[in-house]
């Protein structure tokens, strides 16, 4: 097996995923082109060395359909010989692209790839691609389908996390992200999105609310209460978890991941091709994992995924210097930390998706870039990235600086 090196990582800033968000005027293929062009230029990369562009993208319909990875590679001027592959592993897509790319390089299928993801959630709404699990009555019934917000509240109910617990975590995310921006900790990777006239459309994460306090969050109504109680989903969940009498609905827009637009990519390769391209590796991939757990509670994959990746790397949680776990919902992170016994001071040190947003297909690769930048800044060695995923899945990747 060949060792997989990480040469670079870039991302766009995340625009608020609404019509008045700064990136709403920007097509997803343009977002993908922005990061693909940038990683090429920064590394003076001969794209004929890039075998494949693998992008995660969850809602592959309309302008995000038809294998946007290949469209974007062509649009960004990559060599005709560079193939393109778009994949959907729900929220894990961006990291899945990296893990798939890494496997390909390990096996010799590819020598060098660009992997990441793109999602313009303001333009292609989440869920607009339907899907049998959610829509088909027979499938939904037989599998006890509930929307993720209900699952997040179920995790909180079972774990005994209170509204204050999750809101406090959300406030911390905002504080950490604000500080990170103040100290320009993301500077290395952020690529502004510019228009055809060279004018900047967006150059910083737009979703952050720096002044957030537990007090200011307390006024927000739970987002999934009505869905759960009026439209039957609480009962569907309880039928799977009959030791629960009532689901405690505590998640809301302020302690869940934000809906945003964005794109990100990472450049991976084997040593030989890296040398040929004249690149210096920043880190290597130690291990990665994919697991699947019970689908109704859905968001409990990160714990088992992390344990599996640690086993594969011959490490334990104490050996990890920094952890990025996607802040899909606050309860997901709280449960993960309890479950694997992680040190909270190593987790999401620059904030996460609650503050900056979660552009579904792009998030995994963004987190990998974030942890790599921070390892370099703190001069630490090992980093873990993990995400919860629809359907009960979980993904993790462990990297080590070289």
């Amino acid at each position, binding site marked *: 097996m060949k060792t997989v090196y990480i040469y670079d990582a870039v991302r766009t800033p995340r625009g608020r995923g609404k019509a008045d968000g700064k990136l709403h005027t920007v097509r997803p293929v343009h977002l993908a082109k922005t990061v693909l062009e940038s990683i090429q230029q920064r590394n003076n990369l001969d794209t004929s060395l890039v075998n494949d562009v693998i992008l995660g993208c969850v809602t592959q319909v309309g302008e995000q359909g038809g294998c946007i990875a290949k469209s974007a590679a062509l649009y960004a001027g990559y060599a005709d010989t560079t193939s393109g592959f778009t994949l959907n592993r729900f929220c894990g897509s961006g990291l899945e692209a990296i893990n798939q790319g890494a496997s390909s390089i390990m096996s010799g299928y590819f020598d060098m790839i660009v992997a990441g993801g793109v999602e313009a959630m303001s333009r292609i*709404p989440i*869920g*607009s691609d*339907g899907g049998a699990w*959610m*829509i*088909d*009555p*027979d499938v*939904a*019934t037989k599998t006890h*389908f*509930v*929307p993720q917000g209900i699952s997040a509240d179920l995790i909180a109910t079972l774990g005994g996390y209170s509204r204050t617990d999750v809101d406090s975590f959300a406030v911390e995310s905002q504080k950490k992200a604000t500080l990170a921006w103040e100290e320009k900790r993301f500077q290395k990777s952020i690529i502004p999105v510019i228009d055809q006239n060279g004018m900047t459309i967006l150059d910083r994460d737009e979703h952050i609310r720096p002044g957030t306090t537990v007090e200011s969050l307390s006024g927000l109504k739970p987002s999934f209460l009505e869905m759960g109680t009026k*439209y*039957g*989903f*609480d*009962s*569907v969940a*309880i*039928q799977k978890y*009959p*030791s*629960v*009498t*009532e689901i405690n609905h505590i998640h809301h827009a302020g302690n869940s991941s934000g809906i945003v637009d964005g794109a990100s990519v990472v450049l991976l390769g084997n040593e030989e091709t890296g040398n040929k391209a004249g690149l210096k590796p920043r880190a290597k991939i130690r291990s990665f994992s994919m697991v699947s757990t019970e689908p109704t509670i859905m968001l409990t994959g990160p714990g088992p995924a992390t344990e599996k990746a640690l086993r594969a790397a011959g490490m334990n949680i104490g050996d990890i210097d920094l952890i990025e776990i996607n802040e899909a919902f606050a309860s997901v992170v709280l449960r993960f930390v309890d479950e694997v016994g992680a040190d909270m001071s190593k987790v999401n040190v620059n904030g996460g998706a609650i503050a900056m947003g979660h552009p579904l297909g792009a998030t995994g690769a963004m987190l990998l870039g974030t942890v790599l930048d921070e390892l370099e800044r703190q001069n630490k060695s090992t980093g873990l990235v993990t995400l919860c995923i629809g359907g009960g899945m979980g993904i993790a990747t462990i990297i080590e600086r070289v």
Partner: protein
Amino acid sequence: MMKINLDENNIVILTIDCEKKPMNVIDEEFVRTFHQKIEEITSDDKNTGLILTSARDEFVAGGDLEMLRSIKSAEDCVQLTSLLHKSLRKIETWGKPAVAALTGTTLGGGYELALGCHHRICINKPKAKIGLPEVTLGLLPGGGGTQRLPRMIGLQNSLLYLTTGKQLDPQKALEAGLIDALAENEGELINKAVEFIKSHPEISQPWDDKKFKLPGGEVQSPRGYQVIPASTAMMNEKTHGNYLAPRNILCAVYEGCQVPIDQGLEIELRYFTELVLNQSTKNMIRTLFYSINECNKGEARPKNVPESKIGKVGILGAGMMGSGIAYATAMAGIPCVMKDISQETLDRGKAYSAKVLDKLIERGRCTPEKKEQVLSLISTTTDASDMKGCDLVIEAVIEDRGLKAKVTAESEAVMPEEGIFASNTSTLPITGLATESKRPEQFIGLHFFSPVDKMPLVEIIMGEKTQDKALAMCIDYVRAIKKTPIVVNDGRGFYTSRVFTTYVSEGINLISEGVSPALIENAGKMIGMPVGPLAVADEVSIDLIYHIIKQTMEDLGVESVDKATLDLSTRFVEELGRLGRKAGKGFYEYPTDGKKFLSPELGKLYPLNKIQPELEEVKDRLLYIQSIETLRCLEENILTTTRDADVGSIMGWGFPAWTGGTIGFVEYIGPQNFKQRCLELEKKFGKRFSPPKILDGKESFYN
């Protein structure tokens, strides 16, 4: 069965009249004749249109359940149903207008015939019902109803009618878009139909247009993505996965509305066939249609006794039960006299009827005149001699043998020689009470359920000496007050209370073993019981359970009672004062300003086991225990028919309808499989699960 007339405009009037049946219903002969007639009509070019109507007060009341019962294979079902689909498609694509001229009630298959026409007009009879009630018998509208209704009124609107079976009167049906126009009488009905045909010489269904779009949004659209998942979850919240019919309806709509109508009908047919052959559907039809009808018709009534004349009913006790019985009696137009010791109690008792009637008036289901008339039939007295002239006296005093003996004697002293004395006891054996009667052959049990105005069942209990005449009069009376009678023999708790008690006791056994109270309550709801066993215990009150069990123990010895129930109820009553809802605490806490919740104290009283049982096992225990006790009632001749067992369980205490009743459930599982599971449960949880002998070698309880 079907008559063809041609009018002067060459419009064919096809009139349905199922002479051999009490109502127009669709059976196999109907389907074949209809197909033949439609072929005839549509192949004659000179015909300009079709009016489909009925010679009866109703249009068509639905499909014939006998026909469905006779279907034994998927092939038969597909063949027969396809023929109906073919006929309706022929009408739709003929190119000439077809109007459904509905003379009245149009239900199920009848409404599906109307949906296959281009226009629907109904005579505005307020009592006529229009709708697709198939789901209530575990079926789906298999004549295109799941395909045409959503194409006509949209996904969300159609799912409401399809998944609940909701029926509307013609005015409301017009407002909901189920029909297109109303007519005042038959003449206007046909005139309007002719008018429509003349003004639409060429016509086709909207869904046969290539550009057709589902009203309100396609399945695969943002709207569909809201409606379908929420409908699915709400359906599962209600059914807990126990009922196949609503799920199949949703599936047929979801899948069928994504393809052209012909393919949609094919999809519907698959889901329909699955239901027709399904054991739960068969059980539901058997109990909810046939058995209930048999009970209502007085199948159990001794045939040799002439119909009784009930001139006046006496009611002893003006409490909750007495007042309810008075209301039900007066509503049936039978005068009654209610007796109690204080006028104040009597006034309160009569006011109960006034209150119920006021509610009906509010909902437009009664008038102030009718209310006065009903109230005028209820008289009150504190004098036992006013039982004079009562053909039937129903005793509804507290469960005290002495008091019951006293009021029996007082009444019998003045009642007519032929009069029947009935006790509304729910716990005391009738034979014992009858020993205090001068005429034990005229003494009977008449067990009403609370609240009487809402509960549809009456359990009639035969004492050892009760004669046919008493039974006949009670059945006549129960039928007159429009309730459903079941007849059982005497024994502790009779049938309904005896079996229902096992549900509560099993809940108490579970909690005593350290099973999570939430798991117990959820399992109860998930098998389809209205509420969990612990909630029931709180409602009936734990001190009542305690008193009954103490009484039983005194009468029959400690071996005869459930130990867990004895221990827990003693502890709750004697030590903890947790008597249930009325005390503000029982298994639940009842905060004055909020919703009840399972008491956290339970965890201290009965610490949870580390390892909790599988949900399926808890569900099985709560269901099996009731069916096992019912089988024992059959063995002991407390019950004499499976019909009374099934009807009594569903209507009496809300045993889940999907099973078809307590014996229906045994049939659903298969008697030998049921026995096998009993043996497993017996091994783990003791004798109360030991399989009754009646199961030995049994293959079916119904053949």
